[in-house]
């Protein structure tokens, strides 16, 4: 039987990928960030996952405003790396797990989550940066990846409660899957940041610290945060943290915190990295 062995919350700041790709990860600006990510990489390597369900948002690459699915699941066997306007990131191709992805799709839809199905799509930094952060610069990703996109680009995104419940449904679906697979779930994006308008550069460390604590101890409380509260208190793009709640929902009621790292700034963003195991 498949089971969820870990959850990772990880910011997907594009500059993190660029720092690695351009060989700048050891410079004065980036060194403290990348050193802070080493324990997460070591923890993940020991977990030896077979598959990751990676919850992220696309940034006008695979998807456009032409079609805006609230939840989308990638069922392909492979996912090319997107050209986001400056050429694709030089990272390995992402291989999917079509059998588990289709099982998830069927289970989730019958469990009343109306998933959009993607048989072909490129993946952007929202997916590849968290992989780089937690796997390092590798010739090939060490596990299969099932992309799960959440719309956070066109307001309104799904609510925190809805995302949390999606995570719970993912857990049920994984546990029904007959094959022995070790599955990790990523929730990406955040933490507090604002990329637009005269308030660009907004960061709220107090909000972020409360959120990190809540992720471990009281996620139900975090599901009560309204969209306006996210945008006001964690910046307009901080609303991405609903994706963290989807991951947290998949871990079950109690977790053990394995590692936590928080850093301001990471480019324009307060970045967070949180590793947990179901307890």
């Amino acid at each position: 039987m498949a089971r969820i062995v870990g959850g990772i919350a990880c910011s997907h700041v594009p500059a993190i990928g660029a720092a690695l790709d351009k060989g700048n990860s050891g410079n004065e600006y980036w060194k403290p960030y990348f050193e802070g990510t080493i324990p997460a990489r070591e923890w993940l390597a020991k977990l030896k996952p077979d598959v990751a369900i990676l919850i992220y948002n696309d940034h006008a690459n695979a998807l456009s405003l032409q079609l805006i699915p609230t939840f989308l699941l990638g069922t392909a066997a492979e996912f090319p790396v997107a050209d986001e306007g400056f050429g694709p990131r030089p990272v390995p191709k992402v291989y999917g797990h079509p059998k588990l992805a289709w099982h998830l799709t069927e289970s989730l839809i019958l469990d009343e989550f109306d998933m959009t199905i993607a048989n072909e799509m490129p993946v952007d930094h929202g997916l590849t940066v968290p992989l780089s952060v937690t796997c390092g610069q590798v010739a090939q990703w060490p596990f299969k990846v099932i992309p799960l996109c959440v719309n956070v680009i066109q307001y309104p995104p799904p609510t925190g409660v809805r995302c949390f419940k999606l995570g719970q449904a993912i857990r049920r679906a994984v546990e029904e899957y007959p094959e022995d697979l070790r599955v990790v779930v990523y929730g990406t994006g955040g933490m507090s940041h604002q990329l637009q308008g005269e308030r660009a550069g907004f960061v709220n460390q107090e909000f972020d610290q409360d959120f990190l604590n809540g992720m471990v101890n009281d996620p139900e409380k975090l599901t009560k945060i309204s969209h306006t509260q996210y945008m006001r208190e964690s910046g307009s793009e901080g609303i991405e943290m609903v994706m963290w709640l989807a991951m947290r929902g998949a871990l079950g009621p109690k977790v053990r915190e394995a590692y936590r790292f928080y850093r301001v700034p990471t480019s324009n963003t307060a970045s967070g990295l949180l590793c947990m195991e179901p307890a």
Partner: protein
Amino acid sequence: MGAPRDYEDIPGTYVYDAERGRVGYHLNMFCMSLNDPENRKAFKANESAYLDRFPLTPEQKQAVLERDWLGMLKVGGNIYYTIKIAFCDGLTFQDVAGMMCSMPKEEYAKMMMAGGRNPEGNLYKAGSSEEQK
């Protein structure tokens, strides 16, 4: 029931909601087209002619030609889309962020290094009912 617009009193923030989506669609789809290297080349070769391929309003076209990053948001631009123009120009997110809040690049970078823009005084628009509480 539509979505409550109780976020309009957040200062310096342009939520890409239904109101902006209604007017911004073509502007953003132009930006999206720049994901294609051939289109980037065509845009750079003759910006005005390339923009005429899209049904933009005169204000939208003007904002793009002038690289008025804040102005683009006001006429329906979505930052994840308008940033594609910046990438095409060789600018970074941080360059554009600084320009949107009228801060010199170095000053903006310094603010981020010091922990970013502080929540204090930045949660409500000046003069909004909550701000006066």
